[in-house]
């Protein structure tokens, strides 16, 4: 199995993701520069956090039109696993791979702290290693994490069980305490909290690691060794 970490100008969690996949998950991983126009046999793509293109215009809006994103969209539409973390989540929203949009945090603060999340759905390739209802501790670091979707969209998310993580105490005003969602097909996950910053006990929490482990297990079960 092979993981890819997409790198935009301004990405800054790319090395953290790479590190966790290579050194903790112990799986092959490569960086993918945003100007690439081909994907070389990847099984899972990680769109990392950071401030792609300086967050100009809207978070993720410019990165969404990077050359590599055409390929990422094709990969996702063919069922490939894609996980967007923080700014990566914003990019996936702008690209239309996930529904909704991000607004500025309700209190206008950049929020950087550990938060508690409730695992709402374990029936995805990204969350099977958790228990339903489990409370996990993962840090957030964002200015635009106030998830928004219209009423009809929210009803869809609930009906299809697409909400994977909810904040126990909502830090940013996100609608319905939403911290992470999957698409209807469940092969694309977006989440504001940073599992790559909580995958080793040296960082005081390993609660993010089961996400990577879930992906590894899912890929193995689907014939990627």
């Amino acid at each position: 199995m092979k993981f890819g970490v997409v790198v935009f100008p301004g990405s800054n969690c790319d090395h953290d993701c790479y590190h966790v996949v290579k050194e903790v998950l112990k799986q092959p991983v490569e960086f993918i520069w945003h100007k690439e126009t081909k994907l070389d046999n990847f099984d899972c793509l990680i769109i990392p956090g950071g401030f792609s293109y300086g967050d100009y215009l809207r978070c993720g809006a410019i990165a969404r039109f990077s050359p590599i994103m055409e390929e990422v969209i094709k990969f996702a539409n063919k069922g490939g696993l894609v996980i967007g973390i923080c700014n990566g989540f914003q990019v996936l929203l702008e690209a239309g791979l996930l529904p909704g949009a991000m607004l500025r945090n309700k209190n206008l603060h950049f929020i950087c702290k550990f938060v508690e999340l409730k695992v709402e759905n374990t029936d995805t390739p990204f969350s099977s290693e958790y228990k339903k209802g489990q409370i996990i501790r993962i840090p957030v670091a964002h200015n635009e994490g106030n998830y928004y979707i219209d009423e009809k969209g929210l009803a869809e998310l609930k009906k299809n069980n697409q909400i994977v993580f909810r904040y126990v105490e909502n830090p940013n005003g996100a609608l319905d305490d939403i911290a992470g969602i999957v698409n209807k097909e469940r092969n694309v996950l977006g989440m504001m909290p940073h599992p790559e910053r909580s995958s080793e006990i040296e960082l005081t929490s390993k609660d993010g690691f089961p996400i990577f482990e879930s992906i590894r297990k899912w890929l193995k079960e689907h014939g990627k060794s």
Partner: protein
Amino acid sequence: MFEAAIKITLKKTVADPQGLTVKHALESLGFNSIANVWMGKFIRITLNAKDKTEAEAKVSEMCKKLLSNPIIEDFSFEVSNA
């Protein structure tokens, strides 16, 4: 050459924490008659087009494709000779 003056604002149905904070600040200065404050973006683009209609069509496409996010934002613009 044409010039487009583009305004992008959050939809009225979307809460605008920035606007609300500015409203509170204005109220603390004694401006008590304010009903609402909405913040937004202003973008000025100069472009070549064969006529105003073509320029407007181009600007509209830019707004839809990149400059605004239709889930949370509305846009409006005026095109004039530059």
